């Protein structure tokens, strides 16, 4: 009995050890990857949020070839809709220094843009580089789609391409940092995206949608900075004599904590896009918004239902001595 047990034990041990050896063998040894001997490329889009006319879309396009095979000759970016003035490709290749700052090394001649193509020809012997392409969105692209085709050429005759997109260009416009002043530049027109003072307001009366005013308080209640439609109850326009013809109404919705990145340029990653305007429902909302402070926002729909906009209050300044109160506003406007 004892002999048999010993026999069984040793057999099991042998079987187990052989199993271990087999299982270890299953792992193949790590092999260093071998670089492809063809020209390679990769592109990424670096900007986030809606693509607004007048703003840039930034791309980073990387191209590389094994040094023994040759070097890079040129890089071409072709857009389906020609970019606006200011469209260029960076002729420097960047690396991040130990300080954390990006340092550029000139590798090519300054980019040449003709209609839809932007070209950079390499002047330094490089077999790998990443160039940044800045496409300024033109007015012609509003509401349409844009695709960008990147092509790299190497000295051994190889070419390779990547197509990025299609990217939908937003229908909306944007106006940043409009200054409004109490008792002076206080008549705001969404249609014109402009601010008028009392003297000019009468001439543009038909397009004025809002009045900006500041009152520390109205008798006993706080009022502060306010955006009020001209047709609102006069109790919300204390001490304001409206110029002739300025009498439109509007629908306003007061919000807070909606610091759209394009308007506020703060650390919040919130973006308002066309779809937010098409889905906006302001039925039952009032025509005044008082007690506004910095970082507050107001959704607005004009009386003729031609425009919907989001007005962001970048900053407010209380009156000091003879200097009246003022505010800085940024607007995203969508034509319905």
């Amino acid at each position: 009995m004892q002999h048999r047990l010993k026999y069984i034990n040793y057999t099991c041990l042998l079987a187990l050890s052989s199993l271990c050896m087999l299982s270890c063998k299953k792992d193949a040894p790590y092999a260093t990857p071998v670089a492809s001997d063809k020209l390679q490329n990769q592109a990424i889009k670096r900007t986030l949020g809606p693509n607004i006319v007048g703003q840039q879309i930034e791309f980073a396009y990387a191209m590389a070839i094994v040094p023994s095979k040759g070097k890079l000759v040129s890089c071409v970016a072709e857009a389906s809709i020609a970019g606006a003035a200011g469209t260029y490709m960076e002729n420097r290749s960047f690396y991040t220094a130990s300080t954390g700052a990006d340092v550029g090394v000139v590798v090519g001649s300054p980019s040449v843009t003709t209609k839809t193509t932007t070209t950079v020809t390499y002047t330094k012997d490089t077999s790998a580089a990443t160039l940044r392409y800045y496409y300024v969105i033109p007015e012609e692209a509003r509401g349409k789609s844009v695709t960008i085709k990147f092509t790299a050429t190497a000295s051994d005759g190889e070419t390779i391409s990547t197509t990025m997109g299609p990217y939908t260009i937003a229908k909306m416009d944007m106006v940043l940092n409009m200054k409004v002043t109490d008792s002076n530049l206080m008549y705001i027109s969404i249609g014109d995206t402009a601010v008028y003072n009392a003297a000019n307001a009468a001439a543009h009366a038909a397009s004025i949608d809002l009045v900006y005013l500041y009152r520390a308080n109205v008798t006993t209640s706080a009022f502060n900075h306010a955006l009020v439609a001209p047709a609102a109850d006069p109790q919300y326009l204390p001490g304001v004599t409206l110029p002739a013809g300025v009498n439109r109404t509007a629908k306003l919705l007061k919000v807070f904590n909606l610091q759209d990145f394009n308007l506020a340029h703060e650390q919040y990653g919130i973006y308002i896009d066309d779809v937010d305007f098409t889905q906006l429902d302001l039925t039952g909302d009032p025509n005044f918004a008082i007690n506004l402070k910095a970082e507050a926002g107001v959704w607005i729909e004009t009386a003729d239902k031609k425009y919907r906009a989001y007005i962001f209050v970048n900053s407010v300044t209380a009156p000091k001595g003879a200097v009246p109160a003022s505010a800085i506003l940024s607007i995203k406007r969508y034509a319905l």
Partner: protein
Amino acid sequence: MKKNIIMALTLLLAASTWVACKKDTPIDEDGLLITTRRECYVSSFELLGTDFVTVRAATAVIDTTAQTVKVTVLFGTDLKNLYPQFTLAQDCKLDPKITGKTDFSDLANPKVWTVVSGDRQIRKPYTVIVTVQPR
């Protein structure tokens, strides 16, 4: 014989446990636990505007005897689009449920909400009286 007795007792135990368990977890139609608490009152009240910032000029005055909540809102508040928030006594719930924006613009006919106690036996209607800060 012994086996039969044991089987019968086990069956009895199982049956009684099943019945007892049912009584310990009574749930009402909203899936909330029905407890033995009989307190039924509003302990605090908040009113938010469309920007989710408070529109109250001061803390709401709650009278648990008269069953009213008196709140003064800031001048220029849009009364049609407000979000009321009630804090109730433990285990209570509110009827009707508040699902979104509430219209408080009819100041002559204040809105009434009923507070239901934890044991769901006591129902107390609370009237929310809103006054707007004068100009």
